[in-house]
């Protein structure tokens, strides 16, 4: 399995939609074949259309607030005492997380296709919040599917979704988390694909949804690349990009523009959710060697038993609490372009405490996983190593958990 250069990873799939011949694809009911095909035609046309691109850029700049900051974490660097630690503060984006890019693009596409309703899934509530914001902006009716457990633990985002006028449909099946929300959202789309557009909240799902999401979040690395060149004058000799990985939308977007660099120069480190340190359950299929299976229309490494039943996950971070992972990351793992590891719930909480103590940013529990690994590895790196962590979400949504676990009041 080999990664090609000078061609976007997003386009390195075969005619059946498989990356590396085995990840991704379209394992969908017959009913969804046509709406998926329609979306493919629309997206393939628009992604090279100058007018559409300038429309996208206009919304990214004026509405989302591109570019988000790229800042040095001087105090944290001094505390850690190793590599230079920087952060791309993607949580600056309108709404407080990277999910806004994908939501905006999906709403633009829905408008072009003449659909009046858009449905989407959410775990941490950010994908749902952003979709409800974008839907409101573009005058679309919006339905958000969310696991009942996540509704309880991510109340600030639930309230925001409702304030934006979207309907939240609680999902009570299975583990009542993201995996069930995605399933229920797909079912809704099967029954309503003639009138409704679907936004999959991460780089998961049937091939075209992986592509649209990755294409949208790549804005992060486009910005970062020029910010790095501006800051350092050239690409640093040793650059390490840390990002949390649940479905994998923020990490893919954070890395995409750096894909062609040698990994000795620009290394990608994906941090999955290891779950509570005392629990056997986790949401880290890449780290713990889960087998390839099919989940939500795509082949990927996924937590499952030997009969092929999808296993329940456990993580303090609702946004990473997903048994599968993007086919793109499976591809990056097997081509050895990216390295994957996991941080536990406790690690993430500790990292949140350290980062928010030394710096004026407050990463949500998802990027706190990435910070945890970045901090512990940075100690061992030379001073001329540049470590960048994507702070892809704001912790306000986690205020109840942080208050309970750390006594922190946001």
């Amino acid at each position: 399995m080999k990664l090609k250069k000078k061609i976007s990873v997003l386009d390195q799939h075969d005619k059946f939609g498989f990356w590396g011949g085995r990840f991704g694809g379209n394992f969908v009911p017959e009913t969804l074949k046509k709406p998926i095909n329609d979306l493919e035609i629309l997206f393939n046309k628009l992604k090279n259309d100058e007018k559409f691109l300038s429309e996208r850029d206009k919304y990214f700049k004026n509405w989302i607030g591109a570019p988000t900051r790229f800042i040095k974490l001087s105090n944290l660097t001094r505390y850690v005492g190793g590599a230079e630690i920087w952060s791309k503060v993607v949580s600056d984006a309108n709404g407080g997380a990277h999910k806004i890019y994908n939501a905006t693009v999906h709403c633009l596409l829905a408008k072009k296709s003449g659909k009046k309703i858009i449905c989407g899934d959410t775990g941490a509530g950010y994908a749902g919040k952003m979709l409800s914001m974008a839907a409101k902006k573009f005058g679309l009716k919006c339905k958000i599917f969310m696991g009942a457990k996540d509704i309880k633990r991510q109340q600030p985002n639930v309230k925001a979704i409702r304030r934006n006028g979207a309907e939240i449909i609680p999902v009570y099946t299975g583990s009542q988390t993201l995996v069930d929300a995605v399933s229920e959202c797909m079912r809704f789309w099967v029954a309503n694909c003639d009138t409704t557009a679907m936004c999959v909240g991460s780089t998961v799902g049937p091939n075209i949804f992986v592509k649209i999401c990755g294409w949208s979040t790549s804005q992060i690395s486009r910005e970062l690349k020029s910010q790095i060149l501006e800051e350092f004058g050239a690409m640093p000799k040793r650059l390490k990009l840390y990002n949390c990985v649940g479905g994998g939308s923020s990490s893919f977007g954070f890395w995409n523009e750096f894909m062609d660099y040698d990994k000795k120069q620009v290394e990608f480190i994906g941090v999955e959710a290891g779950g509570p340190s005392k629990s056997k359950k986790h949401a880290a299929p890449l780290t713990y060697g889960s087998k390839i299976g099919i989940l939500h229309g795509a082949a990927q490494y996924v937590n499952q038993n030997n009969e092929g039943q999808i296993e329940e996950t456990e993580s303090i971070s609702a946004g990473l609490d997903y048994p599968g992972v993007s086919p793109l990351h499976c591809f990056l793992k097997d081509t050895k372009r990216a390295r994957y590891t996991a941080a536990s719930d406790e690690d993430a909480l500790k990292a949140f405490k350290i980062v928010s103590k030394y710096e004026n940013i407050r990463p949500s529990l998802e990027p706190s996983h990435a910070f945890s690994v970045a901090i512990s590895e940075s100690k061992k790196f030379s001073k001329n190593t540049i470590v960048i962590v994507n702070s892809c979400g704001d912790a306000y949504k986690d205020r109840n958990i942080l208050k309970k676990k750390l006594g922190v009041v946001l």
Partner: protein
Amino acid sequence: MIGPISQAFSFAKRENRPALLTYIVAGDNTKKNSLKILKSISKYADICELGFPHNTPIADGGQIQTSSYRAIKNGTKFKDVFKIVESFKKSKFSKPIILMGYFNMVLQYGESKFLKDCKKNKVDGLIIVDLPWPENKKFAKKCKKSSISFIQLISPTTSKNRLKSIIKDSHEMIYYISMLSTTGGKLKVSPFRIISNYKKIKRINPTKNCVIGFGITKKNIKDLKAADGLVVGSAICKEITNSLKKRQNPVTKVSNMVKNLKDKIL
């Protein structure tokens, strides 16, 4: 040679009625009961579909989800599914049996091993919900080699060109999904429209047995009598759920229901 599935259709045709196809989930509400249900309904049903339960069924509505979760909770594994098929096939009123489910389960079991065990236990056909055409071409060929019918699905969203290609690659039976819905939705299209769509499929190749499924209940089954076959699934799963709620015997309840369904299409 005409396979058991085609024979079942011919038999129904001779009686001037559509074939009745039933769907239950293996292991619902218990492993024993699902075998008992199969045995008791096979007096009335022409072909029996048996679901192997998956816990992330993206194309199924609430009723079949409930049945699937119940079966998984009862510890139903593939070996139990095959055991049920084997015992059913040995029983007095055995009928052609079609296994139905999601591709990940087949993948984890191993495609070749799965087909070998299907053949060994006399499974007649397979419906894999999330393996559409053309992705299913290779697997469908493998099925044919093992003398197992791979059943292609067609939906109201299937384009005309696609329809032709699917029918060309289909085996003896085709499954037409009545409407845009997961299983068990309320029939939101008129039976007249469904039959007229169905006829478009038949016109392309009249020799293929085409069944209609999704949203069929005792209330609307007689309005769809023009089809080669009609599938009732969620309504049966719902009957099992209701009988459990009322502490009634699901075997007798479902058996009576299927008899009733049969009476409506005679």
